[in-house]
């Protein structure tokens, strides 16, 4: 049943790309860029749900550190952005705060937040995904799930990054509220994993570089990097994400991702 759905989704997304190709008459580079991204997305499909712990280490120019601890649960959604539940552990004064997000490729995400100190769930209406996440150098849009429809593409060539021969693809965000004019992404030939991303701000100057390292494979299929290192070139600050306790197919259901589940999330 689920497999059927998967096939359907793949076919429809391919159809979508074919139709858009016929309408806009993509150049060879654009088509190749799109193909690489579709392939990359496809290769990771079928993880159903996941849960992981994230340690966020913020550093300023002087090397002063500040730490955040978060648990993230995600549910794979076909034909749409994924659903995610973010539970904050540290700093202590935000412990128990839970954030539920239904991401969508084009329309605004739906977001709810449970504030334990207020004991209430609030729906947050905001199109902004470009601001810093918990004061870090990651924007919310950098952390949300990758969807093919979020960008248009252009293949730039091959380069070796982190010892891996990679496709170099330029991605242009479709959302006009994005904080970027473009991202340059390096995706390796061997496993279609993202190795490095460069972010260009609204005036098209280099803002940040994100590098992925310590990739591990789960369930013989899904590759996840243990470490993501983001450096902001304009303010000299950096943020490192350390992932641990990756688990897949833990049996999370749609009902674990709704307003009511927020209050009991931990």
């Amino acid at each position, binding site marked *: 049943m689920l497999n059927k759905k998967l096939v359907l989704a793949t076919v429809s997304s391919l159809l979508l790309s074919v139709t858009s190709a016929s309408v806009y008459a993509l150049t060879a580079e654009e088509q190749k860029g799109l193909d690489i991204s579709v392939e990359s997305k496809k290769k990771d499909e079928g993880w159903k749900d996941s849960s992981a712990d994230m340690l966020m280490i*913020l*550093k*300023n*120019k*002087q090397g*002063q*550190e*500040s730490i955040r601890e978060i648990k993230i649960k995600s549910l794979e959604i076909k034909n749409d952005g994924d659903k995610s539940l973010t539970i*904050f552990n540290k*700093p*202590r*004064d*935000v412990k128990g*705060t839970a*954030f539920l997000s239904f991401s969508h490729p084009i329309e605004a995400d739906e977001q709810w*937040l449970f*504030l*334990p*100190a*207020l004991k*209430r*769930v*609030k*729906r*947050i*209406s*905001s*199109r*902004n995904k*470009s*601001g*810093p*996440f*918990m*004061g870090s150098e990651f*924007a*919310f849009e950098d952390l949300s799930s990758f969807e093919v429809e979020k960008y248009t593409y252009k293949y730039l060539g091959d380069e070796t990054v982190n010892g891996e021969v990679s496709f170099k693809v330029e991605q242009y965000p479709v959302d006009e*509220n994005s*904080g970027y004019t473009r991202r340059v992404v390096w995706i390796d030939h061997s496993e279609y994993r993202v190795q490095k991303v460069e972010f260009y*701000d*609204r*005036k098209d*100057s280099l803002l940040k570089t994100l590098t992925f390292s310590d990739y591990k494979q789960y369930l013989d299929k899904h590759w996840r990097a243990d470490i993501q290192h983001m450096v902001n070139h*304009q*303010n000299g*600050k950096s943020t490192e994400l350390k992932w641990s306790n990756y688990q897949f197919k833990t049996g999370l259901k749609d009902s674990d991702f709704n307003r009511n589940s927020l209050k009991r999330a931990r």
Partner: protein
Amino acid sequence: MRDKLYSFVGKYPIWVILVCITLMVFAGAGAQKLVFKNDYRVFFGEENPQLTAFESMQKIYNKTDNVAFIVIPKDGNVFTAKHLESIKGLTKASWQVPFSTRVDSITNFQHTFAEYDDMIVEDLVMKTDNLSATDLEKIKQVALSEPLLLNKIIAKGGHVSVVNVTVQLPGIDPLTETPQVAESVRAIKAKYLAENPDNQVMLSGMIMMNTSFTESALSDNATLIPLMFLVVIVTIGLLLRTITGTVATVLIIIMSIVTTMGLAGWLGFYLTGPSASAPTMILTLAVADCIHILTSMFYEMRQGADKRTAIARSIKINFQPIFLTSITTAIGFLSMNFSDSPPFRDLGNLVAIGVMLAFVFSVTIFPALLTVLPVNVKAKQENKKDSMAKLADFVIDNRKLLLIFTSVFILLSASFIPKNELNDDFVKYFDKSVPYRAATDYMQDNLSGMMAVEISVKTGKASGINSPSYLHAVSDFSDWLRDRPETDHVNTITDTLKRLNKNMHGDDPNWYKLPDSQELSAQYLLLYEMSLPYGLDLNNQLNVDKSSSRIVATFKNMTSNQLINIESEMRKWFKENAPQYEVDFASPSLMFAHIGKRNITSMLVGTTLALVLISILLGFALKSVKFGFISLLPNLIPAAIAFGLWGLYSGQVGLGLSVVIGMTLGIVVDDTVHFLSKYIHAKRDKNASTYEAVHYAFDNVGRALWITTFVLVAGFSVLAQSTFRMNAEMGLLTALTIFVALVVDFLFLPPLLMALDKKKKKQRESLKNGEVEPSTSVS
């Protein structure tokens, strides 16, 4: 040695000219390396405590270099669909400014409000195509009641708004970064005006100020230096009536300037507002040497000497005095090395180099040129000499009255010195004709100015800012600041938290208060930060682990002392009300407020040292301890009178004026040297009476003194026309001091000498009988 010098110059004039010109060309090539530093921070030494405090604050929070577009709709109402749309466009365009990291405007303000159980975060002005009158009224009401916006982004009357662009200069190539930003914002402004002709736009902010430093200096150099050359040519041409002399003098000036600026380039100097006035000053000072040589030479020629002999004698007579005056002038300028502000040290060193080079050129290439070029001496100008003799007679006859009158005048003027007040308002460093000044004045009048203080309140504990006691302290402090009449605006995180608390309680105005638990405020901030767009985050108010927050207070225009007072009152507030927090105060305004005082203290040491050195030199040169001491009076009185008159005229003393005493000391000393040396020469070598000696001194150097004074006063008055007020005031006060010095040397010093030097009283009768023959030969 002096004879040898000219005999060599006279023999090989062409070689001397060639060697000097080669020297100039090689040194001058360094001028290509000279660059202009366009950053107000150059005014502060590396160890300046206020600069250090400000820089460490900038590292913790984000930088505050900015450009402000001041948008003034001609119909006087920002809140129309049309104007809001154009401001929205301007906001978007501002993101394209190089190095911009943040843009704040009335349209992209992150408006938060509640709808049932929803919390909405969006731009205050979203779509402008179908805004109803109600929508517009709503926007206006939100904007005018938002403490973050009022007086900062929107004027109280709703008739002016600001689009503020924060830039973070990477500092990799500082010389091109600021001009790049300025060029970009000017292009945006031009485009905006073309598309919205019913608006007026002005540009202010730190970047525009830094740009104005360069532009002001460049436009000065383009207008003031040619003007100054004109003054020199006209003065020498009219007073000395010589074409060759004028040409040769202009050449010496050009060579002195080019060589100095070239050496500056080789030595790694950079230009700043004050040091860019070095060429004008060198130009002025170099003229004096040439005038002395020309005057003596023409005197000799009129006495029948041939040209070469006349030049040789002139060099012989003048070598020591102009060497001495050049040295004292250089010492005066070198005293600026004690200044706390590097640009003034550079200015002092450059002018000192220039003055010494001018001396070298005036005893080498100058006589060589005069030897080679044709020189015709016209008829004597006896009438001028008569006027000096008349002045001498007048001074001698009325010495007692003059002494009393001048003493009273000196004391009276000096009594106004305390009327001077320290004030370094960097906005006022520029003339009203400079667009940056006009824009900032306008912004000051309608919203708030650039007089700001940043206050970092630290808990030393991660998440410490969320504690209710901390928030209450910060909020109380902000309220206390807002109640003060001089406060225009206070930016504080507590306003945002109060607003969020209200939003989370269905926008109930009763909930516009601080959250009452650490967790609640932490969770509000988490929520809020997640909903903000790129560039509008809280990193400019909070540090990375939320252990400190920054309050920015903007004040009405005030003097340095008033600002320093407010600073100490703010410190007192924290000491009394929240002693548990470490608090730092810093801002460019504070840096400038303190620099005047620091600079005056350090310049006092430098000036005293220069005074001691110069007095010792004079003592040796005049071969008399007594006259060394007497010379102190005419050397110090001019500055006292000038600052007294300044107290009456303006009363505002800043960085630029705090170096004037040291600088003028070396120049006014020259008059005293010339006058006293002739006086002593008459008394010692000619056995003249005090009165005769005074008369002799007037006859011999009176004319040269007033010509050089005229040139110096004219030169520094030209500098006083600068659009860079720091230089203009420095020029004006220097011109005043030099003029006063001449008056003192003519009207106060002789009566003083006659009162103190009474030994040969008998001679008075012989003078009255007209037996004294006015000495005609120069010593």
